[in-house]
Every structure is written in C-alpha cells, then in structure tokens.
C-alpha cells in the first residue's frame, strides 16, 4: 500500500514521451498493445495525474525506492546486531570454544590429558568436574553444585558425566605416553573424590579414540530413521564394556516405537513438572554473552535445528521457559525420535557410584568409537529422569515400570539411554570451560 501511495507523489521522467514509450515492465517481453488495454490499465491513470502537475522535480522514483531499501537494510541490521538480548553470532567462535582445539601440543602430558577431560560428555553440558593435576596424578572431583537439580535428584547423571571425563583422561594419557591406573572412589570418607588416575611413563600409543576426542559432539539433529546399522550390537559390545555394565540394543521397529512413545510421554511429564522444567531451562544459553560468560549448557547451535532456524532464533529474544519446553517436546517427537537404534546401559539394581562411573566410561568410549566411524549419538534420558523423580518424590512408578519393561532383564537398572544412527547433518560443538576454571 505504501508503494502505491508513493507513486502519486513522484514525478514523471523529465521528457514526457508518448505513454507507450515510457517503458513496460521488464519482465513482460513483447507485449502487444491494444486500445482497450490502455483504457483499463490503472498505471496509466497514475501517470496522467502526474503529468498535469507543473512542479519542479522532487525525488526520483528510482532513488526513493533505493532509499526505502537502504532504510530497510539498516533497520534490519539493527535488529540483527544491536538490540539487547538479541543478535546474530557465528557458530563455534570465541574463547568458549577454544578447548576444542585439542591437542594443544603442551609438552606436559598430564596437563594435556587433563584438557581431554574438558571435552567429555556431560548431562546438559553441565561439566560437573573439578581436576587436581600433578605430574604423576590427576584427581577427578565431583562438582555437585553443577548438578541438574530435580532432573537428577540422585546425582546419577552427574556421576555418569564424571565417568565420561575419567575415560577421556585415560585415553589421552595412553596416547601421550603415560599409562593410566584408575581407582574409582579411592577415599571412602570423601565421596566428592570420584577417581584417582596415577600416571606412569610408557611409550605413546596411537588411538582412533584419542583422535576422535575433539570431534565428538552430541548430535541433536535428525538421523536416517529405521536404517539398520549392520553389526551394530556386536560393535558396541566390542568397545570394551566396563565390568558390571550391560548393554541392551532396541533395534526392532516395535522396540523403537515403544521407547519413542515412552520417551515422548516422559518429556511431557517433565514439562508439566514445574520444578523440573525450571531446572532444565536453567542450562540454556541463548546469547553470545551468556555463552562466553558461562561456557557451558545447551546452545542454539548445538540443538540440531539447522542454520536458517538458528539465524532467526539468534536475532530474536530468549524464548520463555514455556516456549522452550514446547520446542523441546516438538524436537523429541520429531527430530530426536529418529534413529537406527536406541540403546540402554544398565547396572545391577543397587547401582553404586562406582558402577555409574564405569557406565560413564563405557558411554564415552562408545561415543568416541561412533565418532570415529561417522555415526551420531545423543543421550535420551527423559525416562530415567522421570523414574528418579518418581522414586524421590514418592509418586507412582509409571515411568519406572516402563523402563523396567523396556530393559527386559530382571535385576538390572537402566542408568542411561541413547540413540545412535546415521545423521543428516554434522553436530556443532558446545562451549567448554577452560582448564584454568576447573583446576581445584
């Protein structure tokens, strides 16, 4: 409408020729002019009015449109960059992503092995580890202040994440010329000291798992759904599963459908539980400033949404918790329900802290192996999270029973679940806290 009104205030070209010579739209070639077309054409009425106006030329039509375009671009640029809480930024840039430049070439193998811990998997990228590093030993300490709260009331996922860090240290140490000797929960009086890793000199050994450490990222995008990975179960079993850990692969269509349906239901239950929803939302990092300040949590780029969706998400304000919850539910139902298989990692029913640490080591090893062969993985822990919530709050065991049924094995407790498959797109790196921030 603005453009239509604008034409009434613009002047005609300085030399007024016949109407037919004023120019036809460039996208119409070879228009045949007939008398009745001229009579009914609205554009000719506009021109006729302007030619009756004997005034000095104002702004030319073309220049006006250019100004309009430039103004629009400038306004759009302000939206992109300037408004508080909004603003586009490039993915994987800044100091928050510097730890992924690994290995650094540090001549001290104990420091380099400690840096490998920074790149381990952890629930919601909480990075719940502290490290005490000396030339011959690395101690891994639990940072319980970085737990997921009501999403992880029994600190199950926190300890699985610590196990992931322990495994990265062990793999890196061997590749860097140190033989690791890992003792889990070495001090019965100090439950925060979860591992002591003694380092002895040895010849460095090449390792595809070590090479995969800086490339391993949780892939939250879509996978090719239902495509069989030949030999998957055997391959996962051969990745040196820790003692006490059992693996159950849900690959049939029926099993995948059941796991998918229960996971979606568990996601809904988490969203409807206000405390769990708040604790979940606390770890979302929307702006570049938040990413650089905290260097943890889940970002837009790591959410598996795609470049264009990320663009619009970044230039907008941080979504409300309720909006984020609805996006998460939608992602779970659609994108994150796609997989070749879902996998359950289990321990005995008692599930000690050491068992959880060993399970974390197993998961990290599996994820590094998957990375080395261009498969994607993503933890899907909504079911165990709701089960833990039911147990600690005394609620009916709706999701606990569902998990037990899926496990199909008496006396075993599902500690975590994940999906695995061929990804449509590569995953983005997540922000990581540097070594200086985690040294205790």
């Amino acid at each position: 409408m603005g453009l239509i009104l604008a034409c009434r205030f613009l002047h005609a070209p300085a030399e007024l020729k016949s109407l037919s010579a004023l120019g036809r739209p460039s996208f119409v070639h070879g228009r045949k002019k007939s008398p009745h077309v001229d009579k009914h054409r609205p554009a000719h009425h506009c021109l006729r009015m302007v030619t009756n106006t004997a005034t000095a030329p104002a702004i030319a039509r073309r220049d006006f449109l250019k100004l309009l375009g430039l103004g629009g671009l400038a306004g759009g640029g302000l939206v992109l960059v300037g408004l508080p809480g909004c603003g586009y930024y490039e993915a994987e840039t800044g100091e928050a992503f510097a730890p992924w430049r690994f290995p650094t070439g540090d001549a001290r193998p104990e420091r380099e092995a400690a840096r490998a811990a920074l790149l381990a998997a952890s629930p919601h990228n909480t990075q719940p580890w502290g490290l005490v590093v000396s030339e011959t030993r690395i101690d891994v300490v639990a940072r319980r202040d970085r737990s997921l709260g009501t999403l992880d009331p029994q600190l199950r996922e926190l300890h699985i994440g610590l196990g992931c860090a322990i495994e990265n240290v062990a793999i890196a140490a061997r590749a860097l010329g140190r033989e690791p000797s890992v003792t889990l929960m070495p001090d019965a009086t100090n439950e925060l000291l979860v591992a002591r890793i003694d380092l002895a000199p040895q010849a460095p050994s090449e390792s595809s798992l070590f090479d995969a450490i800086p490339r391993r990222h949780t892939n939250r995008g879509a996978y090719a759904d239902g495509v069989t990975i030949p030999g998957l179960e055997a391959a996962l079993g051969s990745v040196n599963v820790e003692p006490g850990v059992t693996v159950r692969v849900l690959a049939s269509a029926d099993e995948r459908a059941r796991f998918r349906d229960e996971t979606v239901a568990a996601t809904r239950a988490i969203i409807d539980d206000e405390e769990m929803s708040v604790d979940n939302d606390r770890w979302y990092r929307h702006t570049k400033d938040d990413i650089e300040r905290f260097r943890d949590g889940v970002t837009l780029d790591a959410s598996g949404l795609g470049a264009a969706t990320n663009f619009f998400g970044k230039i907008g304000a941080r979504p409300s918790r309720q909006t984020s919850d609805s996006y998460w539910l939608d992602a779970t139902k659609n994108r994150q329900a796609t997989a070749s298989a879902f996998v359950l990692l289990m321990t005995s029913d008692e599930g000690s802290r050491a068992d959880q640490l060993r399970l974390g080591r197993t998961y990290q090893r599996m994820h590094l192996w998957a990375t080395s062969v261009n498969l994607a993985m993503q933890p899907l822990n909504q079911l165990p999270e709701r089960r833990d919530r039911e147990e600690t709050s005394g609620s009916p065991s709706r999701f606990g029973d569902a998990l037990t049924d899926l496990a199909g094995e008496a006396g075993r407790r599902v500690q975590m679940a994940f999906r695995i498959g061929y990804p449509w797109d590569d995953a983005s790196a997540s922000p990581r806290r540097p070594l200086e921030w985690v040294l205790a």
Partner: protein
Amino acid sequence: MWTLGERAWIDGHASVGVGVAIDGGRWQLPLREDAMVAYELTSWFTLRGGVGLGAVVDATRAARSYGEVGLVVSLALADFVEIVHRPFVSFPLGSEDRAVFGGTRSLRTSVAVVPLDIALRFRLRWLTFGP
C-alpha cells in the same frame, strides 16, 4: 517483440529468491526461468502456458541442491495479480559420499515429481527498472 497473431505473444519470467526450508533449517536460493506463450482471453484476463527450468541451491549444504524442469500455467487479472501453477520434476544437482560404519553414506536429493506448486504473484509496475 515476438507476437503470435492478434492476441498472443511470447513471454518470459525470471526469478531469483531466498528461502528457508523449515525441515532442517536450510537456506535455499531458488533460480527459475519460465518461457511461455501468453494469450489475451479478454481485456482483463491473460492466460500463459509454457515450460520452466530452475535450480534450487542449498546454501547450507550443497549436496542438497536440486534442479527443476516442469510446466507453467498461469492466469493473470489485469496483469496485476496472477495465479501460477508450476508442477515440476526435481533431480539432484549435488551429492556427498562419506565412509561410515557398515558402508558408505551417500547424501543427495532424490528424483521426485511435485504435482502441486501454486503461487500467487503480484506484478508491481512501480518497482520496475529500466529505460
């Protein structure tokens, strides 16, 4: 000016666009050229028909780019508003192969028939450039 008798002529339409594919959040750059015969049904209505060629470049991942070849049929009112039906066959323009566990993964668009592609086009003469 290529006319075909009293009421018909050769017509063309070229377009360059920027779009977003919601599925996968991908940027797309569609480039299209249509060659048509236009026929003036009445002073108000013009019918066009012809062939269309195009390429949709996926700016996020080149392997997902595809080409189009199809038919174009449109009806324009006062040469201002036009409804266009453009069914086409798409074919891949790129591919990407990657070794994965269990074999090789090949990523490309598949050959597909899109029987329904309808657009509403507004011709704004005030936005034209030229002599």
